[in-house]
C-alpha cells in the first residue's frame, strides 16, 4: 500500500499507461488500479500514487497535454470537485 496516496484519473487508457511508464522510469512508486466506483467510469484503470509526487506528475501531464483528475483516497465522496489540476490542464 502506498502511504499518503491519491488517485489520479485519466481521460483514456493510453494516458494511464504513459503516466505509469513515467513513474516507473523515474523510480517513483505507482500502482495501476481499477477506477474506484465513486469516482467515474472514465476508463477501467487509474493510478494510485503518493501525494508528494503529484507536482512532478502535473508537470509531466502538462508537457503531454494530458487532462488529469485527482482524488484523495481518504475522501472518496463523489460530489467532491476535481482539483484545479483539471482546469489547468484543460
Amino acid at each position, binding site marked *: 500500500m502506498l502511504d499518503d496516496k491519491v488517485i489520479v484519473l485519466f481521460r483514456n*487508457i493510453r494516458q494511464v499507461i504513459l503516466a505509469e511508464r513515467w513513474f516507473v522510469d523515474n523510480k517513483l512508486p505507482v500502482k495501476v488500479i*481499477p477506477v474506484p466506483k465513486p469516482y467515474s*467510469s472514465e476508463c477501467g484503470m487509474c493510478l494510485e500514487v503518493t501525494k508528494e509526487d503529484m507536482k512532478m506528475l502535473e508537470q509531466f501531464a502538462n508537457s503531454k497535454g494530458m487532462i488529469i483528475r485527482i482524488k484523495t483516497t481518504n475522501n472518496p465522496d463523489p460530489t467532491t470537485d476535481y482539483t484545479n489540476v483539471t482546469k489547468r490542464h484543460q
Partner: protein
Amino acid sequence: MNLYFDNCATSFPKPSAVAEAISKHLNETGGTYGRSAYPRILNSTRLVEQCRDLLAEKMGTKEAGKIIFSANATTALNLMIHGICKKGGHVLTSAMEHNAIARPLEHLRQMGMIEWELLDSSPDGTILTDRIAGKLRPNTILVAVCHMSNVNGMAQSPGAIKQAIGEIPLLIDASQSLGSHPVEVDRWGADFLAFTGHKSLMGPTGTGGAFIRYPEMVEPLIYGGTGSGSDSLSMPSFVPDRFEAGTPNITGIHGLNAALQNIPAPQHTRDDFAALLQEVKQNKNYVVRCAADFDQQGKLFSVVHNSLSSSELAQRFYEDYGIECRAGLHCAPLAHRHLGSFPGGDCRFSLSPYHMPEELNFLAKAIHDVGR
C-alpha cells in the same frame, strides 16, 4: 531458395518473433485492452501502447496518441474518407489509386455526396505538383493519394503535394510504403495516413490503422464501447478512443509489435535491386512498369509481355520456376488505365528484405527465359 515475390499482397516469411508473440498471447498471457486493471490486462495494454509508440517512430510523428488501430488499411481509409467528406465537397486523388481509395470516393459520388477527379500526373503516375493549384476549387475538402503505387512501385512526394494544397487536408495511403520506404508524416505536414501491418511492416493480417491529426474533422465509422466515458451514449471526442470502438485485434497487435522490434536487415542491397530492374528492362518483349526515377522506386515492379497475358506469365513463373507472383489488376484499375495496361493488367513482383542477391538473380533469369 525464397521464391515468394508477392510481398506487397502480404509479406512472407515474417520474422519468427511474430508467430511467437501471437502464440504467447493466445496460449500463455492472454488479456484484453484496458477495461480493468489486473496484471493480465495491464500487460496486454502496455504492449498495445508500446506498439502505438513504435508505429509513431516508424511513420515519423511525435503524436503517437493519434494513431488508431483498425482491421486493415482499407477500413482506415473508409473511416477517414467517409468521416471527412461532407455533402457538396470536391476531392482530388491520383491516377495511381488502389480501390481502397477509389471505391469509397466513387460510392460517395454515386450517393450524390461529393465530386472527385484525378490530379495530373507524368507517365509513371508521379503527380505533377505544379499543376495541383489549377485543380483546386473553393469546395475542395480533401486530397487523398497513395504514397507508393502497388502496381509500379512509384512513390509520390507527399511533402510537395501538401505544399501545393496548403490547408486542404492531405490523406496518404501508406499501405505499400510504411516499413520499406521513408514515411515522415510530421515533416510532410500530412493530416491523415492509413497503414497496414501485414505488408512491409511484416506483421500479421488483420492489423492496420490510421494516423488522424485532426480527430475533430472525422466522424467515427464504428460506434460502440471504448472503456472510456462509459456513462455517455456518445462516442468520446478524444483519440484513440473515438475511433477504436470494440475490442481491438489484441492478438494481432502482439504480432505487429514483435514485427516492429524485429525488422530484418535487408539481405540484398539497393544496387542489387537496381541491377535486377536493369536486367529485366533488357528484354524487349516486356514493358516494365516502374518509377521513371529510381530514387522514387519502391520494392515492387510489374511487367507486361507483348504476347503472353499476365495470367499466362504468372502460371509459367510458378509452374516452371516455382516463383510466386501476382497477375491481374491488383485492385488498381485507375493505375492500369493510366499506365495503359487496362483491362489485361500485368504481372507483379515484390521483394522482401529476406531475399538474397542470388534469389534476385534467379528471378531476373526466369523473367528473361519466360519472356523469350
